[in-house]
């Protein structure tokens, strides 16, 4: 053993009390699904974890009906104080069962236990705790007094942060007074099902939260269900487009959190030690399965060689392997399908002339694995500089001036996130102003907080999750009476004295919502 070797320190899955088979969670109970069941496996060794139900059209109908019933009879009539208390209860139960949830998450997803334990699950609890406090303060959400919930929300989440994405969706929806049906990703249903058990422990009224497992077809049925008032989706831009098309012409309010190809910009005066850690965290955190990953490193030309050398040294110390081992830095790729895509795009990168490098590391023989990889000599037209790889693959490009860095950073149809590394505060502010991205990290990367809005520009989707903005995505302004009171005085005053046609036109309700898709149907 040299000084970098660690003895294995695995968490044991024996702390889990998993069932062999899980049904759908509808109206407060687990029921059999009517679609074909499937297995959820551990991507680290391809071993079966449990058999999972699949919801068909009839199941989706039942779940939406349960959510509607719970909305009409219970949740929309409950005081904000009591809704908040349920959310606080849920937050506490998550904290109490944090270790178990972290192990389940790493087992099912393949992410390192140190991430699920220190990032995912603590943030899940924080998200519920944050929105719990909003439930009885909706007058201050920015939509004017007495805003209204939307009704039944259909929520579809991805496999990269299974339980965290669940929290991002469920916490604000419930705080605002909506009921919901949520579909976790096909490959990572486990923590959503454990969460259903937590809801039973919290005694949440039946039907307020319904969880349907299944594949893409289940999600499609759910978001296109006619009795759904709100659609919230996190996932690929391709599916986001499909949802935008399928909800066109409906009254559904839609938020989409889609793909990204973030630029992580390193200026030559950057604090280099922190920058190296930030670059590594930006792209190798969660195996690069992060929509906001810093997958394009833009490094100022004069420090390119130094940065790349130091990155290679740092990458050589990353430990790739058993997700349940507390020493593991990089875990398993979530699925065979995703591994295939990463391999394919990496091969394209080589074929197009970029230079590929990975540290010497021994990958397990079972399961889905991909060594951390850096591409240098990447040009802006390469596919690995344009397409989202969603894996531990970094493309390195260079720039000379801040203007060039900004132009290259913005040269993408995406606009989710970006990073800036420099010691010059005024430059951070100037560059941040120019980047067309929804989340910008200055001298840090991949930080998340329930109070901080998250979401993209351009083809990275629309709407925000987190913070006051994330709450507004589940609310609409009060009905007409409330709106008239908020009407701008000058305009209103003038109109009263006007001839009928114009007066009628103007006297009607002004919209005061501040949500991004404020007047969306």
């Amino acid at each position, binding site marked *: 053993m040299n000084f970098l070797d660690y003895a294995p320190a695995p968490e044991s899955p024996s702390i889990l009390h998993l069932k062999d088979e899980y049904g759908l969670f509808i109206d407060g109970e687990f029921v059999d699904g009517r679609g074909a069941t499937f297995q959820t496996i551990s991507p680290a060794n391809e071993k079966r974890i449990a058999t999972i139900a699949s919801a068909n059209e009839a199941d989706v109908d039942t779940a939406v009906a349960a959510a509607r019933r719970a909305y009409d009879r219970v949740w929309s009539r409950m005081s904000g104080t009591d809704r908040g208390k349920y959310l606080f209860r849920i937050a506490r139960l998550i904290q109490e069962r944090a270790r178990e949830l972290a192990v389940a998450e790493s087992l099912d997803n393949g992410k390192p236990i140190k991430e699920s334990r220190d990032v995912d699950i603590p943030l899940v609890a*924080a998200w519920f705790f944050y929105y719990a406090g909003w439930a009885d303060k909706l007058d201050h959400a*920015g939509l004017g007094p007495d805003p209204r919930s939307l009704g039944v929300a259909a929520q579809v989440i991805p496999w990269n942060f299974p339980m965290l994405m669940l929290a991002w969706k469920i916490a604000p929806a419930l705080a605002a007074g909506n009921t919901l049906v949520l579909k976790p990703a096909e490959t990572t249903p486990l923590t959503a099902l454990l969460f259903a058990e937590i809801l039973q422990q919290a005694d949440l009224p039946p039907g307020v939260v319904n969880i349907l497992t299944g594949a893409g077809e289940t999600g499609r049925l759910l978001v296109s269900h006619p009795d759904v008032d709100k659609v919230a989706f996190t996932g690929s831009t391709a599916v*986001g*487009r499909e949802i*935008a*098309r399928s909800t*066109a*012409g409906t009254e559904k309010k839609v938020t*989409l959190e889609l793909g990204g190809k973030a630029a992580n910009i390193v200026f030559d005066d950057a604090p280099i030690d922190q920058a190296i850690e930030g670059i590594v965290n930006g792209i190798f955190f969660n195996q690069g399965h992060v929509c906001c990953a810093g997958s394009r490193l833009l490094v100022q030309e004069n420090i390119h060689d130094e940065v790349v050398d130091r990155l290679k040294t740092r990458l050589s110390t990353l430990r790739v392997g058993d997700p349940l081992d507390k020493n593991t830095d990089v875990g398993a790729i979530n699925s065979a399908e995703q591994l295939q895509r990463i391999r394919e795009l990496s091969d394209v990168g080589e074929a197009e002339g970029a230079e590929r490098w990975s540290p010497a590391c021994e990958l397990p023989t079972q399961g889905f694995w991909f060594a951390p990889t850096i591409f240098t000599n990447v040009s802006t037209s390469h596919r690995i500089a344009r397409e989202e790889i969603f894996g531990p693959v970094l493309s390195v490009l260079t720039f000379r001036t801040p203007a060039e860095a900004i132009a290259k950073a913005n040269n993408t149809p995406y*606009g989710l996130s970006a990073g800036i590394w420099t010691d010059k505060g005024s430059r951070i502010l100037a560059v*941040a102003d120019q980047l067309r991205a*929804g*989340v*910008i*990290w*200055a*001298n*840090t990367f991949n*930080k998340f*907080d329930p*109070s*901080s*809005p*998250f*979401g993209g*520009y*351009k*083809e990275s*989707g*629309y709407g925000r999750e987190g*913070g*006051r*903005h994330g709450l507004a995505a589940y609310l609409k*302004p009060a009905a007409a009476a409330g709106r008239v009171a908020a009407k*701008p005085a*000058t*305009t209103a005053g*003038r*109109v009263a004295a*006007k*001839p009928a*046609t*114009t*007066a*009628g*036109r*103007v*006297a*009607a*309700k*002004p*919209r*005061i*919502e*501040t949500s*991004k*898709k*404020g*007047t*969306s149907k």
Partner: protein
Amino acid sequence: MTRLAVAKTYKLYIGGKFPRSESGRTYEVVTPNGAFLANAAKASRKDARDAVVAARAAFAGWAGTTAYNRGQVLYRIAELLEGRRAQFVEEIALSEGASTATATAQVDEAIDRWVWYAGWADKFAQVAGNANPVAGPYFNISVPEPTGVVAIIAPQTTSLLGFVSAVAPALVAGNTVVVVASEAFPLSAVSLGEVLATSDVPGGVVNILTGSPAEIAPWLASHADINALDLVGAGSLEWVDLQISAAETLKRVLPPETGLDAAVPSLGRIVAFTETKTVWHTKSML
């Protein structure tokens, strides 16, 4: 002997200039009684694309002005309109067959809406943005920024008021627009273009197309360099198809509004065409 009037040629307004349609097409604008008023340019797909190019080119400059400056520029539009009330009243009365009083009321309200929105320019960010108390050593702030190029199908039932009600809020945040005017009542829109051209609004910030919304809208809905689509006046078009088409590049879409309160003044109309940017600034160790 009465003086022979000099008739105006109504053209498009693209990139700060007044071209005819590249297609050479015009259509007749008539009064409700069918009397001839003017020939308006019938914009083509190419005109629409030229307008988008102009709007994109103008975006960085307009978005980059200070909020205070944008407010002043928008207020200046109201000032110039005020000085040309008579012209607009006459055009509206003729085109819509409205009484002078009704036409005057429409012009006055349009001017007042410019004033109302001008005042928002340096305030809406304070209402729509905020600092976020994150759990860590970061200064974290969310601010609204303009979405980009916004295509607007203006309300079709009025000459000026609907047009202003749709265009003004999009400009407040720093967006640039391509707007298709009312097909039946395009004259005020073109005359407003003349006001814009002599105000301090940079060329390309507002681009005005006249012609058939049904013909032009699909090209705008599918255009990859447009970020948002306001269908406020598209109620009689196949607007669901337009929204479906807009999904290809995930444009932000506002649906049609019908009735007399279409595009009524609201903060929501400003915020609808903004993107919330959240920046995490790292605090150093002391």
